[in-house]
């Protein structure tokens, strides 16, 4: 049960081919960069973009299946959607925006407004019912959009970048509110975002979409522990090494050898947390089994921490303190040694 979607959409030079299943009561975040097909996926599930191949079914009912020529139009799908820029109806008050779906379903005006007012109260906007969308703040508009989508009592709730239109100052508050409102909804919830922070804060599982394909799908813990592609590793903020484990350790396709501890052989992934990498000017006498020499190609400050990209035979990102950076006096282009203990490298089969 729940939503089963295999979505293939072809559009001038781009192909989305994503397969995912979401249970009722679950929040799935679809995480991916701009242009990865996230919005197209949501539009297909909502029925706004018919799929070219594949199948979309909700609780056993087929919504879209080109093979058998089934297509349920958007107005007959039990799917609510909160759009990226909310797309409230500018000519209607906040209350009438929320009442819109009920009115479209034939509920009379008074009853629709009464129920819409209840929804506005639920999202904490009782006072703002008469306001026009143009007078609402970003956070308020988002809550009106959410109430409008939920008022039709959908079984699937889709959220397209629900926090992207907000400024940094209000994002945390709105994210917290959104989490609370999402918890109160029993159906399938799919959240599309390009920001891992939103995915971690709001979702049970994450599907990572890269160039139109699901690169990986799983719980946040699974994905963080076992990223299976370079892109996913970057998203979760770790180093991924791909190669084959043999007698000498892990050998990458470029021929570099990494000393690892592993109880298996064959094609493998290895991850190294940036915090586990020690950076020094000269090769130090160290217990670390791996030392890679390379030029610094990137220095990125995040608060009091610094991420240093090192163009060694295996490209690594190390995280050091700002104080360490200053002491070593590192600048882009400097040659440094990156040391990693074999025990800090976590391996798993491909």
């Amino acid at each position, binding site marked *: 049960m729940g939503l089963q979607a295999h979505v293939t959409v072809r559009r001038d030079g781009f192909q989305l081919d994503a397969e995912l299943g979401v249970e009722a009561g679950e929040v799935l975040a679809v995480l991916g960069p701009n242009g990865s097909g996230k919005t197209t996926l949501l539009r297909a599930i909502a*029925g706004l973009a018919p799929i070219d191949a594949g199948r979309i079914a909700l609780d056993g009912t087929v919504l879209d299946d080109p093979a058998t020529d089934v297509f349920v139009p958007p107005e007959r799908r039990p799917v609510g959607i909160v759009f990226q820029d909310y797309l409230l*109806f500018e000519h209607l008050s906040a209350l009438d925006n929320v009442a819109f779906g009920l009115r*479209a379903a034939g509920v009379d005006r008074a009853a629709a407004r009464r129920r819409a007012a209840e929804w506005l109260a639920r999202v904490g906007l009782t006072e703002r019912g008469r306001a026009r969308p143009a007078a609402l703040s970003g956070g308020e508009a988002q809550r009106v959009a959410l109430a409008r*989508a939920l008022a*039709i009592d959908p079984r699937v709730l889709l959220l397209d970048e629900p926090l992207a239109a907000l400024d940094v100052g209000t994002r945390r508050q709105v994210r917290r509110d959104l989490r609370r409102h999402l918890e109160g909804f029993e159906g399938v919830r799919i959240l599309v975002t390009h920001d891992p922070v939103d995915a971690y804060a709001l979702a049970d599982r994450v599907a990572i979409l890269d160039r139109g394909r699901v690169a990986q799908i799983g719980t946040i813990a699974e994905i963080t522990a076992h990223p299976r592609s370079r892109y996913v590793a970057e998203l979760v903020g770790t180093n991924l090494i791909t190669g084959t484990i043999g007698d000498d350790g892990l050998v990458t396709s470029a021929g570099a050898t990494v000393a690892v501890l592993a109880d298996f052989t064959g094609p493998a992934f290895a991850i190294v947390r940036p915090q586990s990498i020690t950076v020094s000017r000269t090769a130090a006498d160290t217990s670390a089994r791996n030392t890679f020499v390379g030029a610094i190609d990137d220095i990125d400050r995040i608060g009091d921490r610094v991420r240093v990209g090192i163009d060694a035979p295996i490209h690594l990102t190390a995280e050091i303190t700002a104080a360490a950076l200053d002491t070593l006096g590192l600048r882009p282009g400097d040659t440094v040694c990156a040391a990693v203990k074999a025990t800090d490298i976590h391996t798993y089969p491909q």
Partner: protein
Amino acid sequence: MTGTAAAERGAAARHRRVGRERLPVPALVLAWLAVAFFALPFIGLLWRAPWGAVGTVIGRDSVRTALWLSIRTSLTATAVSIALGVPLAWMLARGEFAGRGAVRALCTLSMVLPPVVAGVALFASFGRRGLFGRYLDEWFGVRLPFTTAGVVMAQAFVSMPFLVLTVEAALRQLDRRVEDAARTLGGSRWYVFSRVTLPTIRPALVAGAVLAWARALGEFGATITFAGNFPGTTQTMPLATYLALETDPDEAIMIALLLIAVSFTVLVALRDRWLGGGRQAG
């Protein structure tokens, strides 16, 4: 002292900087020339007006009949333009069919045609001996030429393109995702069109309707060619004005002023209420 003076100069400079952008002098001269070009005819008209005879001229039955006919026919023509023009604009904006450009050109041709030519075309088609008019008469007993319906037809023929082009542009600019949002909320296509699309393009619809109405009110050439000039049935204000000019210039001027007053009042009223003159639009 000097400090204060400098501060004042500074304040003045700041004031100038936040003030209006200065236009180049030659452009200003030309702009005011254009204003004079539009203002002088009205000034001349007001100066020539036989103010003493206002009461008698407006009180004349012929004038009141023509005014009433003009208002009735121009409003009917506007209603026809809206009823047919909005679906046409929608089809031109959203329809995907071969020859759309040709259809648009055909449907807006009458806007650029000399009105007399439009009248001749209507006469050739819907006149009593016309290609279609013949059968309308034989089969249904409907006669359009030289009737009030013919006036409305001539007015709608030349004025509808103004509405179609305005509404089509607005439909093209509309963010269609707003309609998508309405559909996901359970709105059928018609419900979405009437409750979301139309209200969203309302400023353009009103502007287009006003343009079409003004064109219909002023329609002369097509009307006189196709519908003739019969007091009470087809003699609208512009026709009455033109004919009065030969017999009674004072009456012509008074009718002209009356037309101007009607148009001006409507334009000003709509400008504030709908067209967003000075204030934020839509």
